[in-house]
């Protein structure tokens, strides 16, 4: 056994100083990296309509956009409102059925500001001309997503649609549970807006 040594006051002071300065340096580097990333957001690639986009949880292929008042069910609404409708092909790549397409496909003019709750679109299954609830895994389907277009907003000639990615975590930071989490946008798609009744 070696003789137990006790650090002098000077040695302990140095240890405290080094640890404190190191911590300060680490937080300064991390903070400046965050600031730099916020100032230089990664460029989101523009993808042509009809091209498949991998969002992690989904494969989506945006086809066309149109604005009108009649939803794909064909039943005229009792209180007419403008609907922006986007036709797309989807494949659920996860192991569970779900209906959370609204987290992945968002028209840029309707994107909610940070902190606000975005409008949940209605999804229609084209096969049934009826509401789509969950989309089963590995079953390609064509769906139509519909958002209410604000009355006072001018309708653009082309609609920019943001396609967001989702990240799979085997263990999340709170419970260690598996789940899908919001990621960065993976693509933007320009769709010409057709006017229909």
């Amino acid at each position, binding site marked *: 056994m*070696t003789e137990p040594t006790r650090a002098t006051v000077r040695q302990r002071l140095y240890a405290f100083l080094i640890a404190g300065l190191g911590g300060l340096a680490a937080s300064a580097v991390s903070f400046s990296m965050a600031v730099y990333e916020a100032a230089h957001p990664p460029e989101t690639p523009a993808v042509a309509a009809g091209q498949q986009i991998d969002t992690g949880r989904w494969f989506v292929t945006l086809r066309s956009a149109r604005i009108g008042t009649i939803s794909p069910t064909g039943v005229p609404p009792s209180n007419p409102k403008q609907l922006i409708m986007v036709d797309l092909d989807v494949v659920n790549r996860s*192991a*569970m*059925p779900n209906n959370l397409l609204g987290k992945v496909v968002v028209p840029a003019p309707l994107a909610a500001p940070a902190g606000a709750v975005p409008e949940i679109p209605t999804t229609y*299954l084209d*096969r*049934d001309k*009826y509401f789509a*609830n*969950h989309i*089963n*895994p*590995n*079953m*390609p*389907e064509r769906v139509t997503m519909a958002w209410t277009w604000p009355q006072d907003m001018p309708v653009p000639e082309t609609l920019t649609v943001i396609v967001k990615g989702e990240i799979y975590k*085997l*263990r999340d930071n709170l*419970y*260690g*549970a*598996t789940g899908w989490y919001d990621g960065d946008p993976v693509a933007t798609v320009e769709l010409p807006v057709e006017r229909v009744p």
Partner: protein
Amino acid sequence: MIGTLRTALALLFAAAVLYGLQHTRPRYSQITSPIVTTGGMNERVQTGNFALSLDSVRVARALDVETFGKTKAYTTPGVWVVVEGTAEARHETLSLTSADWISTAGVRYALTDRIPATIEMLPGDVNQPGLPRRALLVFEMPQEAVAGGSVAVTRSKLSPLDDEVQIAVDADTDRTEPKITLRRNNEGFPWTVLPQR
């Protein structure tokens, strides 16, 4: 010298132990998963709360649903699987609101929500203790998910550590029918699967 080496070794050992713990720790979903009782076709599989047996499984490429004189055709990119059986509560009145098809790859396909609620499936039934009741389950899935799949039934999707019955369904994919019809009966037995066999 020896002391430093010993410290370094201790640190390495601690890191190895932590790495091992991190990679062998059960997942949250495993810790909170339902308690599964397994069985086969034509077998009464019993848990503390309920019992289930399945006796018929039919696979078809298309499904017609006939209710109140109207027929609607339901197409699918995969196949329809119609399962019939008997459910029974044991000690208290309950509903079995969650039924999934689990493929051999571990992918879950939820009970279809496309067909109208006038065809009452298992989640809508109220099971009284001691009164066995016929149950209908309709799934939609890709062709390759049928072989070797099993049906998992539990009281609720959201109740961890509850009882779950998993029944291995030996569906015969060679006997895939082109089309079957689900008919709602207005009197007598609630539904009929046609053509009868």
